[in-house]
C-alpha cells in the first residue's frame, strides 16, 4: 500500500465511522418508534433532491447536494403525513407511495441529465449504491460537522426524545410540545440519512438506520447503552466494511458495510442473552412446565358454589385433581394461588377460594362471556 492508498482508506474509514455512529444512534430511535420504513422512504426520496440541487447550481459541493437531499427527504416525510391525514390510506402504504414516486422521479432526472454532453454530471449515479472511494476530505468534514450537530441535539434533548418514544401521550400530558419534538427527531433522522448517501447510497441506506438499533436492542436493557452500542456497531461495520473493500479488489464499500452489519444483526438475534432466539427456546421449555393457575381457581370457584352459605367450606385436593386433566400440577397451582391471596387452606385441610379469588374467578368468567358475545 502506498501512502496515497493509505490516505484514501483512512478517509473512507473515517467517513464510514461518522456515518455509522450517527445512523446507529438516531436509527435506534426510529427502530424503537417503529419507524424503520420511514428511513427507507426518506433515503429514496432524497435522490431527486440530489439531482435537482446539481441541476440548479451546477455544483457537486457536498453541502449543496446534502441540502438538496435533506430537503427532498424532509418534503417526503411531510408528504407521508399529508397523505395519512387527508385520505384513508394507512401509514405504511403512504410510505410506499412516497418512496416510489420520489425515487422514480429521481431516476427520471438522473437519466435526463446523462444526455448532456457536459461531463460534470458524472458521478451522480453513484448516489444509487454509494461510492465510498469518491469521498474527499471536504466530504468527510461536512459529514462530521453535520453528524456532531445531530448527536449534540440528541444528547441535549435526551429525556424529551426518550419520553416521546416511549409514551407520547404522557409527554403531551406534561405539556411537552410533542409535535415539534416529533418533527425535530424526524429531521435529525433525515440528517443521519443524508450523511450516509454518498458512501452507502439511497438504496441501502435504510439498513444503516434500522440494523444497528435492532442488533443493539438484543444486548441491552436500557436506552443509553442501547444507543451507545448501536453507534459502536455502526462504527465497527463502517470501518470493517471500508477496510475489507480496500483490500479485496472490486468489492464495493457501501454494500460491504451493509453485509458486515447484517452478520452482526443475525448473530445478535440468535445469540444475545435473554432476548436471543436460542435463549428464548431454552426458556420456553421452562415455561411449559409451570402450573396453570386459572383452571384450578375456576374449579375451586365452581366447588364453592355448592356451599353458598359457608364460604369456609374446604374441598380436598383429590376432588380438584379429579376435575383436572391428569398432567395438571394441582398442588403446585394451589400453593401459588395461596401466595397470590386467591385461595387458602381451610380448617379441615381442604382448600377454598378467598373473596378476592372468588372475584377474580368471576372476572375470568365475565371476560370469557364478553369474548363470546
Amino acid at each position, binding site marked *: 500500500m502506498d501512502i496515497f492508498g493509505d490516505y484514501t482508506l483512512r478517509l473512507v474509514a473515517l467517513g464510514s465511522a461518522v456515518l455509522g455512529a450517527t445512523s446507529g444512534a438516531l436509527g435506534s430511535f426510529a427502530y424503537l418508534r417503529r419507524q424503520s420504513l420511514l428511513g427507507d422512504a426518506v433515503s429514496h426520496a432524497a435522490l431527486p433532491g440530489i439531482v435537482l440541487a446539481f441541476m440548479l447550481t451546477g455544483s457537486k459541493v457536498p453541502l449543496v447536494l446534502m441540502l438538496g437531499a435533506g430537503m427532498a427527504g424532509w418534503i417526503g416525510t411531510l408528504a407521508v403525513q399529508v397523505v395519512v391525514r387527508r385520505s384513508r390510506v394507512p401509514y405504511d402504504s403512504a410510505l410506499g407511495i412516497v418512496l416510489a414516486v420520489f425515487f422514480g422521479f429521481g431516476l427520471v432526472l438522473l437519466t435526463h441529465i446523462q444526455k448532456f454532453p457536459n461531463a460534470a454530471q458524472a458521478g451522480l449515479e453513484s448516489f444509487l449504491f454509494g461510492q465510498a472511494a469518491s469521498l474527499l476530505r471536504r466530504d468527510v468534514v461536512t459529514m462530521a460537522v453535520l453528524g456532531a450537530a445531530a448527536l449534540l441535539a440528541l444528547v441535549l434533548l435526551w429525556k424529551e426524545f426518550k419520553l416521546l418514544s416511549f*409514551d407520547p401521550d404522557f409527554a403531551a*400530558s406534561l405539556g411537552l410540545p410533542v409535535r415539534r419534538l416529533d418533527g425535530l427527531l424526524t429531521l435529525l433522522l433525515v440528517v443521519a440519512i443524508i450523511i450516509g448517501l454518498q458512501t452507502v447510497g439511497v438504496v441501502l441506506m435504510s439498513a444503516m438506520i434500522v440494523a444497528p438499533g435492532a442488533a443493539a436492542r438484543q444486548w441491552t436493557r436500557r436506552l443509553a447503552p442501547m444507543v451507545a452500542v448501536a453507534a459502536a456497531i455502526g462504527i465497527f461495520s463502517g470501518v470493517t466494511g471500508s477496510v475489507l473493500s480496500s483490500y479485496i479488489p472490486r468489492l464495493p464499500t457501501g454494500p460491504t458495510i451493509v453485509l458486515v452489519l447484517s452478520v452482526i444483526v443475525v448473530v445478535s438475534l440468535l445469540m444475545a442473552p435473554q432476548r436471543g432466539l436460542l435463549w428464548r427456546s431454552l426458556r420456553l421449555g421452562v415455561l411449559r412446565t409451570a402450573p396453570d393457575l386459572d383452571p384450578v381457581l375456576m374449579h375451586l370457584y365452581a366447588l364453592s358454589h355448592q356451599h353458598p352459605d359457608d364460604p369456609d367450606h374446604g374441598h380436598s385436593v383429590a376432588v380438584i385433581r379429579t376435575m383436572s386433566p391428569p398432567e395438571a400440577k394441582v398442588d403446585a397451582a394451589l400453593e401459588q394461588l395461596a401466595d*397470590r391471596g386467591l385461595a387458602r387452606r381451610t380448617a379441615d385441610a381442604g382448600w377454598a377460594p378467598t373473596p378476592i379469588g372468588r372475584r377474580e374467578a368471576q372476572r375470568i368468567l365475565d371476560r370469557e362471556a364478553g369474548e363470546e358475545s
Partner: protein
Amino acid sequence: MNESQVWALEVEDLTVAYADKPVLWDIDLQVPKGVKMAIIGPNGAGKSTLVKAAMGLVKPVAGEVRVFGKSRESAEGQIAYVPQRSTLSWDFPTDVIDVVTMGTYGRVGWFRRCGAAEKKEAEAALDQVGMSEFARRPIAALSGGQQQRVLLARALVQAAPIYILDEPFQGVDAPTERAIIEVLDGLADDGKTIIVVHHDLQTVPEYFDAVLLLNVRAIDSGPVGDVFTEENLRLTFGGRVGVLAASGAGGV
C-alpha cells in the same frame, strides 16, 4: 353546593368526532373537588376519548374543558395522567425507576438531567405502590399488575391535584387492585380529585363516591347513591341489563 363553586374539572358542550363519526356528543360534566369519580359505559362509549379530551390529547369539534375554573391550556401540571397500560410498548429498553422518574420531566425543564432529588421522589412513589424492590427491573420483565403500579407511581411523582386513570384495573391481579385502591383512597384523603375510567360495575359503589354514566352522550352524573341506578344503567348499556341487575346495581 352553591352556584359559585369552582369545579376541579368542568366539561361543557364537548363533542369529539373521528372521521365524521361522533364518539362524544355534547358532554356536560362537573367534577367537584375531592371526589373519586368512576366513568362507566359500554365499549365504544367514548370513555377513553373523554379522558383524552380532558387532557388535551384529542382535539374536540366543539366544547370546552376547564380545570379549576381556568382554561385547560393554562392548567399545565394540574392533572396527572395514567394512560391505558395496553397502549404502551413495554418492550422499550428502560427500567422501572426510569419510567417513574419520567413523571418529573415536566418540572425539570429543558436540557436538564434528572438528579438525586428526582430519583428520591421516584423511589418514594415506588414505595407507595409496593414496588421498591423492582426499581432496577427492566419494564419488559413486569407482570400486568406490576406495569400498572409503575404507571401509577409515575403519576404520583407529579404531585398533581387531579388524577385521571384510564382502566387501571384492566387485567391486573387482585393484590394490585387492592394496592391501587389504597393509594387512591390515600390521595382522596389528601383532598385530591380522582377520575377513573372503570369497567367493573360490581365494585363501583365500594370504590367510588361519584359516577358518570357515558354512552356517547352523558346519561347522568353525580353521587353514586343517586346516579348508579338500574334505570340509568339500562339507559347506558341498553339490552344487556339482565346481566347488570345480577352483578351490579342490584346491591345499591
